[in-house]
């Protein structure tokens, strides 16, 4: 498949240039390889394409780096993130935020704690929040979507009305509302809020692809062979519906990082700053934003980078798993 834009007639030279650029961008995949080997599974063929997809590799690199930093945070952090090491440099009147100095490359925050160490250790909380929020909403969506899609009928109606009601509130507003319920906000209320906000999306997605399969040939064949209901649902229908759900999960990882920051900004996040978290650091930096913008800039840059990495992975996964783009 060549990559020729239709609808107008660019000169031959421009065509060649576009093709060359497309090749360089890694968006055009080699046509021969997959077709030559018959019976390649969707996942195998997706992996073949992903391996050469630069966008995916960049996203993967960012994500792996983030994971490594979070895993080895205590070893990487130069100082204790909770120790007020530069407290004697904090002058509430003239200079509330100590600047960089030897051993403290990014300076300290308003109570003299090392900013770099807080950023490094903060990756752990951010990772915790986005992974668990995504996981919980995925599991919840999986249960509701499977119930609705596998059984149909009145179960489907009841579950989907419920999901529709949840979908009638914009997801971020839903997350705020749930988070506002908590008497003592903590990272777990943030996780709960975000996972409830994205649960209906997973449920809808899964229900759609499960319903489409109920009357498809492979399910009918299994039923005709006398396979019981449960194995049909879990072995035949569920695995075949997971593609779009996985893509969505990768994208929710990104939005969870951003939404957690938004919750902190509104004062609905984890108030305990002995466990540093990027969103919370960004929220706390608001007070000093005009005089010491770097205090907000570093955590924001971390959030943007990680969310960008997850988004890149999700988008290229979406392209790779789309049967339409399979060639």
């Amino acid at each position, binding site marked *: 498949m060549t990559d020729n*834009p239709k609808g107008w007639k660019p000169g031959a030279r421009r065509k060649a240039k576009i093709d060359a650029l497309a090749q360089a961008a890694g968006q055009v995949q080699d046509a021969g390889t997959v077709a030559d080997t018959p019976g390649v599974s969707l996942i195998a063929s997706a992996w073949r394409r992903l391996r050469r997809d630069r966008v995916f590799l960049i996203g993967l690199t960012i994500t792996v780096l983030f994971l490594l930093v979070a895993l080895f945070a205590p070893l990487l952090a130069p100082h204790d993130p909770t120790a007020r090491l530069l407290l004697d440099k904090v002058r509430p009147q003239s200079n509330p935020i100590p600047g960089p100095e030897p051993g403290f490359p990014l300076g300290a925050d308003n109570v003299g704690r090392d900013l770099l160490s807080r950023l490094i250790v903060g990756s752990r909380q951010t990772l915790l929040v986005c992974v668990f929020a995504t996981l919980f909403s995925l599991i919840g969506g999986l249960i509701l979507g499977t119930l609705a899609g596998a059984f149909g009928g009145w179960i489907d109606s009841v579950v989907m009305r419920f999901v*529709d009601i949840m979908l009638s509130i914009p997801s971020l507003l839903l997350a705020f509302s749930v988070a*506002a*319920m908590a008497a003592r906000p903590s990272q777990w209320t943030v996780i709960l809020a975000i996972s409830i906000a994205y649960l209906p999306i997973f449920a809808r997605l899964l229900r759609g692809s499960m319903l489409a399969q109920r009357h498809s040939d492979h399910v009918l064949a299994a039923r005709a062979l006398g396979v019981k209901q449960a194995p049909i649902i879990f072995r035949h229908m569920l695995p075949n519906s997971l593609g779009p759900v996985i893509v969505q999960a990768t994208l929710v990882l990104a939005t969870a990082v951003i939404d957690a920051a*938004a919750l902190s900004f509104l004062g609905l996040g984890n108030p305990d700053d002995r466990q540093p978290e990027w969103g919370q650091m960004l929220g706390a930096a608001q007070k000093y934003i005009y005089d010491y913008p770097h205090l907000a800039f570093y955590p924001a840059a971390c959030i*943007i980078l990680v969310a960008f990495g997850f988004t890149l992975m999700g988008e290229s996964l979406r392209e790779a798993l789309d049967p339409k783009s399979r060639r």
Partner: protein
Amino acid sequence: MLRFIVRRLLQMVGVLFVLSLLLFIWLRMLPGGTVSAILGDRATPESRERLTKALGLDEPLYVQYWRYLKRALTGNFGASTGVVPGRDAFQIFIDRFPATIELSFFAILIAILLGIPLGYLAARRRASLFDNASVIVSLIGVAVPVFFLAFLLKYFFAVKLGWLPVSGRQSNIDATRVTNFFVLDGLMTREWDAAWDAFKHLILPAITLSTIPFAVIFRITRASVLEVLDEDFVRTAESKGLTNRIIRGRHVLRNALLPVITTVGLQVGGLLAGAILTESVFSFPGIGEALASAFSHRDYAVLQVLIMASAATFVIVNLIVDVLYAVVDPRVRTR
């Protein structure tokens, strides 16, 4: 068509009714509750009890809900306890609604005017430098927290450079009010400076609010144009020797814009969540700022009205989009 609309309207009423019930129960489950929010944590048990009685919070939930529903149907949603203490919650919604509409209108206008042409151009020049750059910009645009972007814009253009106002809707408070859409009011009463002033106040919040819809509209347009370009009918049109202009206008754009309409609708509904953050940063007195304040004050009455209103807006916008879709695409109508 009419039957379709009526059925959807009835469904909508059902969804909103159940939502109001769920919201009512849920907001009253909020720990702390209105009583502590009004009196603070150190109130004596006696004064707490008196206020609980006065607000009717000691009765069973269904009694409270029934009373609430009866009053709500006559337009009385209860008084605010935190945002603007004593003011009718519904009145707060009415006060604030025009501001958010005005802001959302400009935001979605920016998103559409930039997103669709850029998406189209990117698809036409697929894999060019322009295409790759704009895709990357749109992906970063989604990754930037809205309130951080708001701070950045405010810091550079309002605080450092001083080109635009820092906060609020209008500096001139003597301007004549007609519709409470300040820009429109200024134009209607020919108070040009008032309209210009209100417009200047809108620029930064509208740009902030437009980033996410812009990124989404851009990407959907690009993907959709790419898909249509690959269709057989475009190839046929080309081989018939139709001019580029006709192919682009009649074959490509018309078909490519269908999914874009749905996306625009979804984004309009979702703007409100972004408005909570944007309006808070710019102290822009709209629904979003009221919601943020209601969350921190645990103002049930206001929360209930505003969340219901935003859900209703979202559902109505989606209905309009579906109807519009049927108008634009004859294939949907025949089904």
